[in-house]
Every structure is written in C-alpha cells, then in structure tokens.
C-alpha cells in the first residue's frame, strides 16, 4: 500500500460484489455516491502524469487512496445529511454500500450483496458478511431464502414495517439484534455476524451467524495424565465457556466479558464463582485487565504479563493450563480464571509455588502415589539445580569433602579430559538446552527421534571424543531428567536460570557458595507476592492446613476447607465422610430383607 510499496499501485480491487439481482431498480434509487468523482479522478490521471514529473505508480497509489477516501466521505456525508451524525447509519442502502465498499470492501473475504426483500414488493436491501466466519447454511436457508421469498403485505410498505417484519417474521436465525452505530457494526461484521441493511430503516439487523472454523477438542498435550480427565480447551471462547459450564453446573459461575486490543478487539473473560471467590480478587483482576491498552492480543500472556504487580520476576506468577478439569478445580478453590479468545490456555490467579507442582494425576491415584510423585518432583528440582554445581564444587573447590574412594573414581574418570569441570558442565548444559529447544520445535515423532539421537549418539560420541567424562554424562542426564519432572513448563525456566547462578556460586565459593545461593533463592521466594498472596505459602508464611496439599498429598477427606491463601468467601468445600463399615453393610442387608 502506498507509500510503502508498488504492488498495489493500481486502484484497490473491489470486493467480490455479487451481481445486482434487481430486475428493476426503483426510480427513486439515488446514483451510487463517489462513482462520478472516481471517474473524474481517473480522467485527470493521464493529464497529471504528463504534467507532473512524479512517479506514475506512486501517483496511482495516491489516486486509489483518494478514490477510496472520497467514496467513504461521500457515504458519510449522506449519513450526516440524514441523521446529523457521521457515525450513524442513515437508512440509505446506497450510502451504506459505498461506505462499506470503501472501508472493508477491498478485502476479498468481505461479501457485500445487494438484494431485494419480498417477491412482489422487492424492497432494496444490502447484506454484508465475512466469508468463512459465518454459517453458510444459516445464511442461505434462514436468511437469504426467507427474505427473498417472503411475500410482504400491502400494509408493510413503510421501511419501519418492513424492518419489523424482517426482524420478527422472516428471520429464523437464533439471535437477531439491531444496531445503528457504524463502529459497532464494523466490529460485528469482522466478528462474523451478518448485517442486513434495509432501505429507509435507520437500524441495521445484526444476525448471529457466527461459525468459526475451530480445532476439535483434543487431549491435553502439555499436561498429560495417565488417568482422569483428558479434555483440553481449544481456541474458541464459546467452547471454553461450554466446557466449564458442563463441569460447573451452577448459576453462580460467572463470565465477565471484556474486550482488549485496539485492533484485534479480542474478547477476554474473567471467570469466577460468585459467592465463593473473594470479590476483591475478581475486582482487582478486572480492573487490571481493563487497564491493558494494547493494539493486539494474540495470546493469553500479552494480557497476563501486564496485570501482575511485579512483571520481571524470575519465577512465573501466572499458572496457565489447557486442562478444563484443572481450571474448574481452581475456580472451585476460590481462584479466578482469565480466558482469552484464540488461546487454548487459560490463566488462573492467584498462584503459589506449589500450584506449579500439582497435577490432576496427583489426585487420581492414592495418597501414597500422589505424595510419592510430588516428592519425586522435589527431588527432580534438587537434582536439576544442585547436581552439576555440586560436581564443580567437589571436584574443583572442596575435594576434601568427598570420600576417598569416590574422589579416586572421579579423578580416574577425568583422566585425559582437557576441560575443567566447570567447562564440562557448560558444554553439557548447552547441549541439553539445544536438544530441548530442538525437540520443542520439531513434530512429536521427530522429537522422539531427536531425544534418542541426543541421548545415545551425542552422549556416546562426546565421551569417546574425550570432551567430557562418563560421570558427567550420568550427572547431565540426571539433571536434565530432573528438570523434566516439573509439570509446569513455565517453572522450568526459573530453575534453569538459577542453575547458572548456582554454577557461579559453586565455582567461586564451593559448597559455601551453593549454600549462599540457596539462601538467596529462599529469600527471593519469600519476597514474591501474587495478588496479595505470598508466593511461597504454605511454607513461608507457614499455613499448617495448606501443608496437607503441598509436597505431600493428604487423603481426600482431609480437604474439608478451601486453601486459605485464596481467602474465599465460602471457606468450606466438603464435610468429612464417615464410613461406618459393618454398620452400613448391616443397614443395607436389613433394607434388602424388608
């Protein structure tokens, strides 16, 4: 587009306007506004080219832009003359056509169809819709066919009467509303609604014909679970709501709708359960979302990153999930969900460190299994963050702390290795990071192959090449696997950064340095807050009740109350179940006898 390119130097191609089907245009029909001006502009174009020593292509761009602007202005002038406002539809279908054709009509997916209403009266009308975003079946059968075939009565010749008849008698579309404001009309058009302009009627019928091309509801890829629900969100906001409603069939489940994005006008929902969730939390989130002023919102984090108190924290403050069951669970624990259109991930607030280490699977199996897997995850963090630095500290700074037999083994395995332990660690970690990123970018099938290649081929080759020792391969593998035990991907980044800090501490100060960095990590964790909730709770500050669902997972009947850190209005979530064993069995048998 001028002045940035020459490809569109010619005048903008008009939208795929379907041929006029009017058999006889009414005598009172005004000429198409802007047509005469465009002709005049084209006529003087040749003259200008010869007179002015300018680039004719640039000139053509300018002429095309001017032509479109002229058409838009003339349409606006007609509306202004009839209504006194520039932004209001006047009832002139011709003006509406000019205005639409010169604003969105240049886009091939915007369809403007001039038509008539009724078999006998043939009242002029204009139908506008975005191709591909509407349900063609609804549009063809429930709108066009009904409008064209409907036989208007003699008494329905006034525009208002025709408009009323179309809205209440002809349309079989589920939801029909009226709107006159042009800015809202354009928003509705680009959202997938069909607009029906009736000549003479100042209100435009907005037909809910939206039907997006949607991805099917699949399994949660990023948070798999062996058992339990597998359902994941897709990109469609309506589906998000449906999925959550199916799980929480309570009228108290509320979706507060907002729009964010100057151009994208993305729908954002703040989901919560009224009467359960702390209203201050809901209000705070809504207020912060409303303050987000950006041109585009393509995905959740463009909003989520802007509504936090501290936006550059090392640890993630936003827990995102694609699991429907997890969002439903969090809502019922007194949290608030932030749902953004076009993103299959949903953010929940507020979050603590433990929220990133809890999964559905923890609750599907027994308390012993749940506790065990969580302890394994804790061990995974320790391995990922400490193992390699410990190797550096013990082989370079504090070898006196290692048992003699072990140090002999380490020293023996390092014979002939040209690099120091710290260099070995750097090399191996870079390889791990490269493999991780490559695996993320590749399709699932290739990623598996890459993992095998990385683990076996590269690992074996690098030892044979004498770059790192055998022990380092074991340590690197354990470290990498330890990081993969973290269920939430966003949390791994924090530990990966802390790993490097730990390496520096270990290399500079040995074990003492590692302890210093550990103290620093705990201090930092204690300083973080998330919507007023301490990030390190229930450990700091200590919440004894919440410890039951931390690194240990207590039996289900322990969870009588909701977590204290969400400060819910409705604290209790269950009553203890008293199973009477033999007494219940006796009662059942007695009932059966009777």
């Amino acid at each position, binding site marked *: 587009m001028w002045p940035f390119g020459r490809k569109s130097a010619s005048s903008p191609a008009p939208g795929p306007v379907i041929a006029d089907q009017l058999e006889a245009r009414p005598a009172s029909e005004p000429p198409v506004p802007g047509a005469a001006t465009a002709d005049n502009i084209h006529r003087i174009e040749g003259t200008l080219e010869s007179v002015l020593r300018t680039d004719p292509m640039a000139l053509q761009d300018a002429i095309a832009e001017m032509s479109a602007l002229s058409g838009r202005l003339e349409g606006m002038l007609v509306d202004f003359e009839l209504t006194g406002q520039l932004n209001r539809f006047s009832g002139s279908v011709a003006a509406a056509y000019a205005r639409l054709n010169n604003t969105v009509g240049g886009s091939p997916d915007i369809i403007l169809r001039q038509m008539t209403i009724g078999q006998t009266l043939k009242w002029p009308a204009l139908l506008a819709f975005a191709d591909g975003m509407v349900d063609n079946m609804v549009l063809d059968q429930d709108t066009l066919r009904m409008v064209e075939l409907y036989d208007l009565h003699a008494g329905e010749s006034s525009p208002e009467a025709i408009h009323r008849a179309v809205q209440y008698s002809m349309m079989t579309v589920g939801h029909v509303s009226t709107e006159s404001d042009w800015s809202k009309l354009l928003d509705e058009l680009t959202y997938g609604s069909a607009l029906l302009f009736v000549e003479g009627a100042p209100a435009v019928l907005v037909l809910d014909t939206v039907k997006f091309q949607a991805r099917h509801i699949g399994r949660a890829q990023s948070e798999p679970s062996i058992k339990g629900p597998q359902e994941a969100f897709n990109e469609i906001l309506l589906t998000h709501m449906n999925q959550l409603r199916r799980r929480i069939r309570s009228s108290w489940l509320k979706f507060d709708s907002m729009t964010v994005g100057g151009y994208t006008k993305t729908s954002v929902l703040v989901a919560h359960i009224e009467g359960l969730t702390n209203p201050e939390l809901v209000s705070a989130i809504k207020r912060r979302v409303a303050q987000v002023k950006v041109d585009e919102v393509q995905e959740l984090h463009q909003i989520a990153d802007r509504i936090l108190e501290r936006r550059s924290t090392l640890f993630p403050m936003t827990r995102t999930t694609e699991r429907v069951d997890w969002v439903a669970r969090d809502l019922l624990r007194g949290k608030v969900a932030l749902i953004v259109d076009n993103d299959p991930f949903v953010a929940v607030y507020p979050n603590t460190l433990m929220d990133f280490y809890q999964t559905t699977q923890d609750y599907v199996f027994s308390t012993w299994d749940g506790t065990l897997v969580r302890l394994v995850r804790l061990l995974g963090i320790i391995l990922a963050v400490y193992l390699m630095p410990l190797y550096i500290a013990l082989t370079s700074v504090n*070898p006196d702390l290692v048992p*003699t037999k072990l*140090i002999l083994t380490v*020293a023996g395995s*390092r*014979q002939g290795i040209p690099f*120091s332990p710290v260099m070995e660690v750097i090399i191996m970690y870079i390889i791990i990071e490269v493999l991780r990123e490559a695996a993320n970018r590749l399709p699932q099938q290739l990623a598996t192959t890459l993992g095998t290649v990385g683990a076996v081929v590269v690992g074996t080759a690098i030892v044979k090449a004498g770059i790192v020792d055998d022990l380092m391969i074991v340590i690197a593998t354990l470290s990498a696997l330890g990081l993969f035990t973290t269920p939430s991907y966003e949390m791994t980044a924090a530990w990966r950064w802390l790993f490097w800090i730990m390496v520096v501490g270990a290399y500079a100060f040995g074990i003492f340095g590692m302890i210093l960095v550990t103290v620093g990590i705990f201090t930092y964790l204690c300083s973080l807050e998330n919507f007023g909730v301490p990030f390190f709770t229930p450990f700091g500050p200590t919440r004894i009740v919440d410890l039951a669902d931390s690194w240990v997972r207590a039996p289900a009947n322990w969870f009588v109350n909701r977590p204290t850190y969400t400060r819910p209005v409705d604290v209790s979530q269950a009553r203890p179940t008293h199973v009477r064993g033999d007494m219940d069995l006796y009662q059942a048998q007695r009932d059966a006898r009777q």
Partner: protein
Amino acid sequence: MRMPGRFVAFLTGLSLLLAGCWDNRPIDTRALVLMMGVWPATGGRVEVAMEIPTPSGLTTLTGGGTSAGSQGASAAYYVLTGTGSNVMSALSNAESMANGDVYLGQTGMVILSTELSPQARKMALEALARIGSFDKTAYLGVTESSERAFMDFTPPSSPLPALYFLNVFGCKSCMPVALDQTVWTSEQDRYTAGVSLWLPLLVPAAKGFRINQMVLFRDNRLAAILSPTATRWLGMALGRTHKAAFGVMTIFPGAPVAVRAVTAKSSPSYRMTHGQLHLRVALNLVGTVDLLPAGDATAPTIHRLDTALARMVAHKVAHALVLAQKLGVDPVGFGRAYLFRHPHAGREWARLYRKAPVTVTVRAVIHNLGDLT
C-alpha cells in the same frame, strides 16, 4: 532496609573477584596424597614419604580392576619422598618433585616410625596439626619397618595401601579389637592432661598388614609395644572389643568351650576413699557359644559359662591395666576424669595412679548358641 541494586551487584562482583576461583584446580590435575609417613633420616633430619596414585592407577581403579602396585609395570601409585630438618621442610622438598599440585586434603593414613626421636615425633604431630589443608580425619599408626619396606609394600587385596587401611579402620566391627586412631583423636589425647596416647602398630605381612598390637606412649616417648594378647585385654578395657573370641577351659576339663563374637562395653571410673584412689572398670560382655557337648546346653551350664568367662576376663583385663599402671601410662583416661574434678592436682595424679588398686567387674552374658557363619 532496601539495598540498592547497584550496591548488591558491586558486593557480588567484589566477592567473586576476591574468591580466587581462578586458582581452583580440578581434582585430576592434583597429586592426591593418600598416605603419608615420617621416618628418621641421617643427621637428625626426617624423611617424609607420600603415596600418590598414578593416572593409570586411577583409571584402573575406576574400571574396577587391580594393579600390581608400585613394583609392577603399571604401578597404581608412586612414592614421593623428601628430607628436611623438620616435617614441613621435608614436605616442601618432596612437593618440589611432584608433577602437580600436592593435595593433602584426601590423606587417609599417616604413619610414624617407632624410630623417631621423641622430639621429632612431637614436631611431626604438631606439623600435622598445623597444615591447613591436611585432613584431620586421617588414621594414624606407627611402624617399625623402614620407609622403603613399608611404602613399597602393596597388600594383594588392594592396589593402594591407603585403601587397605581405610577399609580396615573404616569397619570397626570387622576387627576383634578396633585399633583405629585418627590424627584428630590423637591430638585430643596429646593435649588433654591425664590420658596417654596409644597408636596401632602396623606390620607388613604376607597377606596384608598385621594390626593387632598397641603402642603406648608416655610424653611422646615410646613406653611399650604391647603383645597381641595384652593388646586384646587392654582393648577390652578401652571398650574397643567388637568381635573377640575366647576359649573357656574350666567348665569341661580338657574340652575348651569357644565363646565368639564377644562385644565388650567398658565403663571406667575412679573413687577416692580416705585419700586412696581406687580404679574401677565395669565390663559388660555379650557373646555366642559355638558348640556345647550334647545334653549340656542347659541354663545352669550357660550360667556357669557366663561366670567362668567373667572371672577369666576380669583377671586378664586387671592384669593389663596393672601393666599399664606400672609403665606409667593411662590409655583408659582415668586421669582425665580425675583432673576434670581436681584441675590443680596434676602433680599428685602420677603418684596416686601408680598406687591405686584396680578393680575389674565383668558381667558376661551368653545370649546365643550355635555356629556362626
């Protein structure tokens, strides 16, 4: 108080600069001293010998194989020696010949020659205490062998002699009498009034090192080298018996009964009565009888066996204590307990100790019957 970020960054950078991390050397580039010994040299000098594993020896160890020791083609270790007027200078001389940074932090065994003069022995022990990087948990022992005979001897069960000692002394319940002494505990004994230093005697033998004798010291002077038998009884008074075996002759004449796996707990104490010091050791023995004649495995027989065992042990332990008393050494540490309550009675302690009657009470229990595996 909120510290500015720049100040924190400055502190971090400064501490990193001052950490001296660029001086860190990986373990494989250091000469790991696993065993160190001090012997007398000519002209009143001392000789320090250090056992250091070779790269090929380390690789062999990693692979789980064995090596022929320093004498073989692929020696698992080499011995670095240096002489000097004292241990520190001898150590420096030896270090100058090493092809790497000599690292004493992994020293597992320290040997002192019985031939060292009291002054040299004292200086050697003080030097060990002063070396900062030296691991104080290293085991300490004495030997009558020469430096060459001792350091070049490789026990067949271990490619590295130091590992042999680490295995032996590391498992206290594996020895009849645990004679492990570390540099740390010997320092305690040396600097604590009222207790005499004792060390195990290490003798190279065909199958390894023979460690069944105790060497008693009196003020850094070698007081006596106890026989294996005396060592066993004195070790019992010290509470270091974990797996002893005795033959009780008095129950069935002509048919000794073997009592094995005897564990002894010792509770030494003293008592002052009318200005007279009484020394007392209460022993609690638990053991197993291998085999009794048919029909004799009855409670009265076991009881008689308990009594006979207690009487025999009490007699022998008392005899060993009296022997130590005559030598003027107090390895059990009666004096430490006495001087704790009478800190100004240091001079009279020696006199009181020599004249103190010794009583040993033994409670023996045979708690098991049958063959041991």
